[in-house]
Structure formats: C-alpha cells, structure tokens
C-alpha cells in the first residue's frame, strides 16, 4: 500500500535553516502535511516512495541520538538512501574545515544534507557552499527549526489550536536553540510566550523578542497551557551560571508543586534528553500531563513533512 499525501504543500525555500523567514502559511502547510505522516507512521506498512532514488546525508558535528535517528527514519520511510556521517571518526577531526567537508560531500551529489553543528550560523555557512537542500538540525545557540515544528504539531494535536495559548518556556534560554526557534514559531502562530529563567540564563535583549520575561516559576507558570522545559548542560550547572543542581531544581525544576501553578489541563514538554532531578522531576516527566514521548513520535512525522515539502522543489520531482 502506498499513501499519497493529500496536501500539495510545497515549501518555497531551498533550505530549512530556521523558523525565522517562514511565514504563517509555511508553518501551517508543514504541520498539515506532517499530520498525514502521523497516520502513515502508525500503519504496518510505513513506506512511501516520494524520495526514491534520492540521497540524504546526516552530518552531525555534535552527538545526537534522537534527532539523528528521527531524520534517518524519516528519510528511509520516504524511500531515500540515508547515510550517517559519524564526525567523531572522520577527517573533520583531522583539521578539515567545515567548508572543505561541504565541498567534499557536495561532490557526491546528495539531494539533502541534514546538519547539526555546535556553532551558531555554521549550517547557513555550509548551505552557501553546496548545490543541494540543507536542513538545520540545530546550530549552536541559534535555531532548531524541526524541533519547534514538532513541538507545534504536538501542541496543535492536543489543544486543537495554538493561537492564544499561554506557553511558558523554562530554563537555559541563553544557550537554547530550541527556545529561539519556538519563540519565533509560537509568536508567528499567535501564542502568548513567556520565558522563565534565572537572569544568568537569559540573553540580554530577550525582552525585545516579543515575550514576557520572568525569573519566578510561580509567576511564569500561572495560567499556562503549555510548559516547555529546557535541558541545562552539565558544564553550566556548578557555579558558572547557577550555583548548583540542588539550587536550580529548588527554584526552577518542574515538580508536582510547581506544575500546580499552571492550568489544571496544562501539558508538559521537553526536547530531550532530560536531566531528571535537575530541570524536571521524574514524576512529572512520566506523568499524565507529559507529552514528552508524543514529541518524539511527532518528530519523525515533522521531519518527513520537511523532507517531502523540500523535495517537491527538486528537478524531476
């Protein structure tokens, strides 16, 4: 059985480098297309053929389990040949520059390169040097567009709509590409976005992002429909940005008590991987209000939608 998507949405961009630059209709088009792949992914026969004969390269300069697996599965379910570049063992570690790597891979005629890099702007730089489509799977502290799309899909399926929802994004906003992409996307779709963090983890100028800023979880979660928790990197825990994991958990960790400040039907999200007992309590992470596993499922569907929507621009598509 072969399911042909009903949506004929085409993304009017060659690359997906960020949520910035996408219109409201781009975002809704991608989410609608992703809905169809959710259905496909729940069937026994999950294969489609729209990327048959196409080559997708996963180029990850930063370790990732779920995003890389998610893109790999998305590509394979659409019929593409998927290659994973393990950067740890490649010549990139031997001093080859990002641009050399891009030029080398480009010579192999891939159709899509999915890139994660630890430096902000690195994916855009690579995109300038290749002839194929590039998808940003996270660049430094800049953007992680497919994460924001999968979060939006998850929210929309549960709440029906995103407009006017109160979304609280909590934790390390300063270093988070997930936060940046989500702020832009949620604002574009008309949500009310709050950020909650200690001041050391807020970027200067955040108040100009169109968000409400608070340092207090009680205030930040009051009346919230959605609570998005962010991961706090280990090297930032002990004395550099916050004094200790204990203190961080006490003031900013999401436990049952703090969850009680939000609306009774509030839903909890986390992009993973979680630090249980640091930014989120296990009882909440695994509780009835948690959407964390659903996010992972939506991740595959959203990435299929992005691949499909970009590939419709390809010659001979």
């Amino acid at each position: 059985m072969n399911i042909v998507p009903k949506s004929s949405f085409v993304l009017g961009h060659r690359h997906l480098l960020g949520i910035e630059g996408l219109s409201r209709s781009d975002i809704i088009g991608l989410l609608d297309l992703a809905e169809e792949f959710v259905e496909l992914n729940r069937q026994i026969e999950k294969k489609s053929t729209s990327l048959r004969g196409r080559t997708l390269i996963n180029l990850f300069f930063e370790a990732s389990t779920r995003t890389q697996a998610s893109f790999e599965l998305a590509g394979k379910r659409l019929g593409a040949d998927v290659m994973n570049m393990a950067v740890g063992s490649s010549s990139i570690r031997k001093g080859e520059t990002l641009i050399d790597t891009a030029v080398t891979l480009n010579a192999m005629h891939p159709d899509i390169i999915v890139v994660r890099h630890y430096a902000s702007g690195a994916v855009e730089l690579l995109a300038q040097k290749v002839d194929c489509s590039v998808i940003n799977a996270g660049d430094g502290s800049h953007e992680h567009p497919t994460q924001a799309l999968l979060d939006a899909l998850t929210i929309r399926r549960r709440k029906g709509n995103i407009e006017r929802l109160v979304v609280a994004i909590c934790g390390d906003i300063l270093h988070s590409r997930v936060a940046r992409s989500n702020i832009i996307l949620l604002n574009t779709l008309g949500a009310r976005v709050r950020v909650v963090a200690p001041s050391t983890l807020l970027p200067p100028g955040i108040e100009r992002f169109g968000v409400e800023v608070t340092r207090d979880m009680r205030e930040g979660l009051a009346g919230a429909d959605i609570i998005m928790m962010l991961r706090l990197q280990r090297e930032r825990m002990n004395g550099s940005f916050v004094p200790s994991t204990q203190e961080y958990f006490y003031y900013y960790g999401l436990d049952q008590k703090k969850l009680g400040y939000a609306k009774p039907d509030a839903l909890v999200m986390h992009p993973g991987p979680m630090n249980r007992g640091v930014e989120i309590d296990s009882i909440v992470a695994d509780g009835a209000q948690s959407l964390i596993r659903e996010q992972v499922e939506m991740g595959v569907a959203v990435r299929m939608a992005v691949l499909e929507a970009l590939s419709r621009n390809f010659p001979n598509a």
Partner: protein
Amino acid sequence: MLFDRRPILLANARIIDPSRELDFAGDLLIADGLIRDAKRGIGAAGVPEGTEIVDCRGNVVAPGLIDMRAFVGEPGGEHRETLSSASQAAAAGGVTTIISQPDTTPVVDDPAVVDFVQRRARDTAIVHVHPMAALTKGLKGEEMSEIGLLKAAGAVAFTDGARSIVNAQVMRRALTYARDFEALIVHHTEDPNLVGEGVMNEGEFAARLGLMGVPKAAETIMLERDLRLVALTGGRYHAASLTCAESLEVLRRAKDAGLPVTASASINHLTLNEIDVGHYRTFFKLSPPLRAEDDRKALVTALAEGLIDVVMSDHNPQDVEVKRLPFAEAAFGAVGIETMLAAGLRLVHSGEVKLATLLKAMSSRPAELLGLPGGTLRPGAPADVIVIDPDVPWVLDRNELKSKCRNTPFDEARMQGRVLRTIVAGRTVYEYV
C-alpha cells in the same frame, strides 16, 4: 625600486595643513625629500629646473596619513601580510607612516626585533614604518619589557597590541616606569574575563543570532581602571580603540581633569555598526566588536569635538582559512589601511566631521602623540604628502586591494573620494591612474 627624485610642484591645490590649521588655495613645492614651500602662487616660474609640475585642479593636498594601529604579519605571519604588502596597501590609501603592532612571531619585545622591523621596512616597504613595542614580555601581561632600550632602538610607543593587561599592579608599574622615559603607553581596553566567549556586541542582535555578547562594560571598566592609574602615576596613556558612549564619558572626565590621556577610534567603529554583521558575516567580526548605532554616532560626535584624538585603521589581515569559519570560530579583524581615508570621507560628506578635523586625526595628531616629524606641511618638514580628490565616486572591489588579505568590511561599498597621489620623503610611491 627606482623612484623619480626630481622636485615636485603640486600646483593649483587646496592645501590643508591641520598642524597649523591652514586651509588655502595655493601650490606646494617639494625638493630633496623636504617640503620647501607652501603658499599662494609659487607657479612654474618659481621652481628649480626639471621640477615635475602636477596640476592638482583644485584637489586637496594634505600631510600623508599616519596610521597609528596596523597589525602586519611580518615577522612570523608573512602569509597574511608582509611589511612590503602592507606598505603597498598603505600607499594606495594615502598612509605614509604605518605604526606596526608588536603582536608578531617573535613578539616585538626585544630591541633586536625592533631593529629587524625597521631594517626590513627600510629594505622592502615604500612608506615609513615605526614599530610599537610590547609593553610586557611576550605580551603576557606579567613583566614589563625593556621600555628604555626598546625606545632607544626606535619603538614609538608601548602596547600589548590586541591584548589587555588584566593585572592592575603590572599596569601601574609600567605607567610609573614609562613616565621616566616619557614613553607613551597604548592599551586595548577590554577585560578578557568579561569578554568571555563573546564574539559580537551584547544585545538583541547577538541574542537573535545565538552568539555570545561582549558587554560595553568590558571596555568601560578597563578604561576607568586605567585612567585612575594614570591619575595615580602621571604616565602618558592612550586608549587604543574606544567604541561606546560610556567610554567617551570616562575619557571626557579624565581629560577635563587634565590627565595626560588621549584616545583612538577605529575607522570601522566610526562608520559601521553591529547590524552590519548581518547573518554571520565574519569580515565584520572585530575586537572590540562593532557596537550599536547610538555608540557609533557618539564616536563621530567625539571625533568632531576633538575628544577622540586619532582615527586609525586597525588594519588586521586575516586569510580565508581563519575567516571562512562559523562566526564564533573565525578570527577577529579586518583590513583597513587602504580604505581608511575613503571610509572616513563618508563622515565628511554626511556633514558630521570637517575634512580638516578628519585629516588632523589621521596625521598631525598621531605625529604629535608619537613624536614623529610628519603630519605637517610646514616648510622644512619631510615631504610626506598626499593629493586627494574628496568627491570622486567609486565602488570598492576587494580583489583590487593591495593587501595580501581581502577581509575588508567595505567590499562593494560605494565610496566618495580617493587618494590620487602619495608622496613619501619627496618620492611619488603611488599614483591613481
């Protein structure tokens, strides 16, 4: 290199001599490497036989520029820039004296290296080169260098280049000791701990790009500390590159109190701002970083008022290997010696700065601070002279730059005004044809 050694008459010129606040229509006669005369109506009749007569057609004749902060790759980084290539770029930009920085390999912290730079410049460069020497050994910020011997060898000032001296005690002793030799200390004012991982101006734009910011306080705190040490010691001090309104306040207070303090601003910070970084354009990655437009405007006003003494290029050649990288990993710096005057003329055409003020900040003022004989058109002075058409429009093509590196923030920029001729010690070393 063979140069024409005939006398030169620059006729029918608008002569601007900022060292004497003169601006008049007249002729300027050069012979034997010196300025002989500058007055109305010398004319073809009043010159020695064989004089080359140049009709300037009303264009500006001014002292050759003295670029007080240029990073040259030689010794140690010749793939980026040599004294020769830097001097070619300088001549094309109207710069007749390069003040080189000590951040080389080896560091200019030994009289023998000062001597090396001067000899190499004499043999290979077509403009004058005077080195600044390291203020501390190895630029480590720990032990002061041989200020007396280095000065005797020809170092015109003392600086740790692009580095800041964190230890206040080291700075205090250096200022105290340098005072005995009347040596000028030039300091890059940026607290490296506050800079941290910062790569551009702190604020909304850095936040949106996901880049770590450099707060303005990193500069202002270091400047404030230094000026209190100047008050304590009486040493002569020059802030290498100020960028923000807050620093200008601090500087003004120190000058009003009569402290021996002066300051530079780079041409980049006077004509560009943080928004020029755009989407991770590494040619705009500078140290200190480009600031907000309000800060740029404050710098321009300070230049017009004379609060900022010197405009320098902060010339810093970096090759593609270190610039074609993700923004946070790319090297800091931009080339600028060749475009400093043309970019500066933007401020003149916009009506913000008078031409004479701009020329003063690029020639006579640095000459005074460094004790150099140039920067003037006074008869008897060395004939370091430029002819400028201040109005001709052109578009910069970075492939035409003379520097070995092309990391200019002004690629494809529209310019108005350019150097037509550069004369060093009485010899024409550059002519725009």
